[in-house]
């Protein structure tokens, strides 16, 4: 697999990546592609293989099998070139806690061989809004600021691709919002981003998403494509005591998924007529309001997760 065979717009193009730890397949036959300037969301439950996949992309792990390119460079043999051009933000804060903000940024600038490391670090501090605090130790920063600093260090060497591993875990909503605005601004400038997350609202802010569970990539595409791809038909029912209704509905064939959303229930199935048949008796009940709705991304993921569990039982 060489870069020339691919569209020049493709920044990540990997095929059949497999990685086992201690005999357990953590990533199983994963193929994915990310296009230039796109924000690609990487979703999946804990332990599904997101971090392992990202690490294989930036040369931190060697795949057991599979191949592909990252920024046109072979992930198996050209990891030095990939390292130079990729900004990887680890899940856990991994800058030096006993170095100050400025010292951390200067270290990154020097390792990447940037001319005028001091100047670059200074500019980054101003961009991050950390002016006046540059002497503070990185370990003393709050979670939100640590995350901003880590992102600042990632983009300091002007990478072509960002790999962000759950960057917003444990960060307050305002900081998350700022973070995503920043990511979109960077993507608008042509930077490509692969970001793993647990949050549905964040997934919906991505241009494309990929869903991985138990090491297998289940679906990939735009949000609408993913929802459509599940073939779900959804009804929303609201009324008093929907909790009891949920228990009853669960017994019915044709209903594949029920999820409570506040005072309403999302009732979904893959077979439209079977679903309508199943809910028909309940539609007559007084007090309940039934509406045919669009399945949400969350519905799609709950369904995907349920199906993948079945596959691995």
């Amino acid at each position, binding site marked *: 697999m060489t870069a020339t065979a691919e569209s020049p717009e493709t920044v990540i193009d990997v095929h059949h990546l497999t990685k086992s730890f201690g005999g357990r397949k953590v990533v199983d036959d994963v193929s994915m592609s990310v296009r230039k300037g796109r924000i690609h969301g990487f979703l999946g439950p804990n332990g599904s293989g997101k971090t392992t996949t990202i*690490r294989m992309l*930036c*040369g*931190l*792990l*060697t795949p057991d099998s599979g191949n592909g390119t990252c920024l046109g460079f072979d992930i198996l*043999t*050209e*990891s*030095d*070139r990939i*390292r*130079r051009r*990729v900004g*990887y933000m*680890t899940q*856990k*804060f*991994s*800058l*030096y*806690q*006993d*170095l100050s903000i400025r*010292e951390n940024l*200067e*270290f*990154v600038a*020097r*390792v*990447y*061989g940037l001319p005028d*490391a001091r100047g670059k670090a200074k500019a980054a501090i101003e961009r991050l809004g950390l002016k006046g605090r540059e002497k503070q130790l990185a370990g003393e920063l709050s979670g939100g600021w640590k995350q901003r600093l880590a992102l600042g260090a990632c983009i300091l060497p002007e990478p072509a691709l960002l790999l962000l591993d759950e960057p917003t875990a444990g960060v307050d909503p305002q900081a998350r919002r700022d973070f995503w605005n920043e990511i979109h601004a960077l993507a608008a400038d042509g930077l490509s981003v692969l970001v793993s997350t647990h949050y549905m609202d964040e997934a919906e802010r991505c241009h494309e998403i990929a869903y991985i569970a138990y090491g297998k990539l289940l679906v990939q595409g735009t949000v609408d494509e993913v929802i459509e791809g599940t073939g779900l038909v959804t009804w929303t029912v609201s009324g008093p005591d929907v909790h009891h209704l949920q228990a009853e509905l669960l017994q019915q064939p044709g209903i594949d998924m029920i999820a409570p959303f506040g005072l309403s229930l999302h009732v979904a199935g893959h077979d439209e007529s079977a679903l309508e048949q199943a809910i028909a008796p309940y539609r007559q009940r007084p007090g309940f309001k039934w509406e045919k709705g669009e399945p949400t991304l969350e519905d799609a993921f709950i369904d995907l997760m349920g199906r993948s569990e079945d596959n691995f039982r």
Partner: protein
Amino acid sequence: MTAPHDPELNGNGGFFKRFWAMTVKEFIQMTRDRVTLATMIMIPVMQLFLFGFAINTTPHDLPTAVLMRENSDIGRSILAALKNTDFFEVQSVITRTEDMDSLLESGRALFVVEIPEGFERAVRRGETPALLVAADATDPVASSSALGALSGIVASALANDRQIEFSEPSKPAFSIVQHRRYNPAGSSTLNIVPGLLGTILTMTLLIFTALSVTREMERGTMENLLSMPIRPLEIMFGKITPYVLIGLIQALIIISAGILVFRVPILGDLPSLAAATALFVVANLSIGYTFSTLATNQLQAVQMAMMFFLPNILLSGFMFPFAGMPGWAQWIGEALPLTHYIRIVRAIMLKGADIATLAYDTSVLAGLMTFAMLIAVTRFRRTLD
């Protein structure tokens, strides 16, 4: 992981830029840990003063007993002479062999001088009789120097008090038969400053670098470092360099104190000593760094360093004479940096040699350093596999 040469990673002084980035980072981290930094400087000072003053090279007032087998003038003269010196403190005069054994065993006497029956008569006849000395040689430093002094004391006692003429000056009036009990080996007191210099450097330097890679692993910073375009050799040099400075400062403190406080002579030239010390410092740092790449956590790394430190002390010729060790132990000793460094320092400080005449020991040190670095660089995992 085989990475082909990336033109962007080579050339343009990239190696030195990344090496320097690492060095600056390590140096800042080192100075930020104030407690450790203070310890680094305090350890040599403390140990040198503690051991330097505790280990007195000229023992005095050694508890001594005299076993008088005959009541003669010569016997009383010897006894008086022993009492007049600082070396010995005659605590008892005994007449039975059993008393001698119990005194030595209990440690109440370190020496028992036995004046055998018929000693005076034999001396006068010029028969060169034997004066028996039993010494508790568990403390070899004390017993060796005292035994050396004994011969002179007895000879002058006989000459002054009894006016015994020696017809032939080459033929002594008596001989001393020494019996070193418990520890047949003896160690030279000249070892102490060179030995302490090497030991303190080995102990502190090994641990500094033994922690360096495992600390990054445990703090989670390794993942970030590995995702950057920096190579194992650059990381290693960057992590070793700041501690070379610390090692040289430690050596400077110890050598200065050795000269100023303990009056150790330096017969050779200081540049040779400095060059040998720098080589020894880097060799130890490389070995510590190698442990750090082999260990999976800081505790393991420290244990490895300690496992390496012990034979350095015991088999290097610092504690026990190298020549007295069995062949296999000498072979192990030859593979330890401290062995060669002690030889080099002894030769430069006490014999006035220069580094050029110590080609063998210097090249072994350089070889050990290179070997450790090779293992470290090849063992360093650039991935998290």
